[in-house]
């Protein structure tokens, strides 16, 4: 497909690898924020093509992975109720809660449905006036405008039977939390291109300046990532910091203004819990008071449900780039995509799933 295939050509990838090799003189640690980028890196083998001086660590940008266990247990409690159609993106269905997952609730008779878009959930609410339709609204800034529009639409249509269970997270506060930790070893970031397509790049300038490191807005195809790495390594080698944009075909400095306007109308920033990491100040969204009627947590009275993270899963360290999936004692043995201990092994954006799928394939074909 046009604007996809060109960015996957092997000979161009090799050319970028040569350019990176020419540029690098000492060890550097880079973090790619988005789980989609992690999967491209592993799938295309970029991690194995790079010179040994460059270490890529994988960031927290997997929305399903960082959704706290408490929210999943609340989702399960709502999905079990009679008279409820519980809707979710497909990735979420197999994520383990404390005792079960949404797919098992469905198998036991719960009306759990996978939707492609939050607007599909609104449509279900229109078509089923006698039932409560709940949408599990997870995601980063890329997904939040779609979820916001679903709420706006439901209000306009006057749908009393639609609500959302929110678990929205924001990238800049998570980067701030990573950088302010004494354990941090990240020296440059590949920012998530699709998050920036919505929010623009203005939030990152002050962060890059305060911590004096390069941040490169990067796309998702192999050539995008290689160019992003080349730009980040060049900046590191020259001692430059600040925000650069590799993904100019999609991202502008101001971002998507209409989406930002709807986000600001429906949501307000709030402190948010990240699975395995903990609460990060002002790192999430909740519904504004004018839209509080659409809050499923209050409607189904599940605010008292809380849960502790399983001890054996090191998702928190994986999501902060402190450990790699292959460094986990349970990886590939007690934790597999069929029987996951934690979300990073389930999600299509999870780092553990990427290592399981692609790193294992590389070993078995060697």
């Amino acid at each position, binding site marked *: *497909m*046009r*604007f*996809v*295939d*060109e*960015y996957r050509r092997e*000979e*161009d990838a090799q*050319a*970028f690898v*040569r*350019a990176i090799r020419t540029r690098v003189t000492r060890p550097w640690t880079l973090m790619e924020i988005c789980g989609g980028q992690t999967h491209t890196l592993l799938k295309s083998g970029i991690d194995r093509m790079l010179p040994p001086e460059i270490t890529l660590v994988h960031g927290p940008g997997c929305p399903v992975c960082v959704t706290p266990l408490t929210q999943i247990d609340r989702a399960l409690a709502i999905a079990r109720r009679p008279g409820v159609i519980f809707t979710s*993106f497909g990735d979420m269905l197999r994520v383990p809660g404390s005792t079960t997952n949404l797919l098992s609730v469905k198998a036991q008779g719960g009306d759990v449905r996978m939707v*492609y*878009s*939050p*607007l*599909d959930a609104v449509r279900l609410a229109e078509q089923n006036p006698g039932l409560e339709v709940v949408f599990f609204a997870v*995601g980063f800034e*890329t*997904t939040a*405008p*779609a979820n916001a*529009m679903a709420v706006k*639409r439901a209000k306009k249509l006057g749908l009393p039977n639609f609500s959302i269970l929110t678990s929205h997270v924001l990238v800049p506060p998570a980067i701030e939390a990573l950088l302010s930790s004494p354990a941090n070893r990240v020296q440059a970031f590949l920012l998530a291109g*699709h998050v920036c*397509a*919505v929010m623009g790049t203005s939030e990152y300038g002050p962060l890059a300046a305060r911590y004096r490191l390069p941040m490169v807005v990067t796309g998702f195809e192999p*050539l*995008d990532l290689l*160019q992003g790495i*080349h730009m980040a390594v060049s900046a590191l080698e020259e001692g430059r910091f600040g925000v650069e944009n*590799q993904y*100019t*075909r*999609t*991202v502008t400095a101001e971002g*998507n203004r*209409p*989406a930002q306007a*709807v986000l600001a109308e429906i949501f307000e920033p709030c402190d948010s819990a990240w699975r395995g990491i903990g609460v990060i100040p002002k790192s999430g969204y909740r519904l504004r008071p004018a839209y509080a009627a659409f809050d499923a947590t209050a409607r189904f009275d599940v605010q008292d449900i809380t849960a502790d993270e399983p001890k054996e899963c090191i998702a928190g360290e994986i999501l902060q780039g402190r450990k790699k999936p292959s460094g986990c004692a349970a990886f590939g043995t007690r934790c597999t995509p069929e029987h996951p201990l934690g979300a990073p092994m389930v999600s299509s954006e999870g780092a553990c799933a990427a290592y399981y799928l692609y790193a294992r394939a590389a070993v078995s074909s060697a």
Partner: protein
Amino acid sequence: MPMGVVSFGGVTKEVCFAYTPEVVPGDWVLVHVGFAISRLDEEHALEVFRTLKELGELSDLDVPQPARGS
């Protein structure tokens, strides 16, 4: 709600254009969970190949042409 149809390499889907009112039929767009969130800038789409050329890693013949479809 402004809706439209997007072809994903031949598979078509209905997509919401509330966030990209500037899009006209024939444009390339980035779609996420049923919403077009960005119009693809075809001029900027070739930048990566210009960079490769500047790095001396690509010959003139290898630069993809804007008019080439798939």
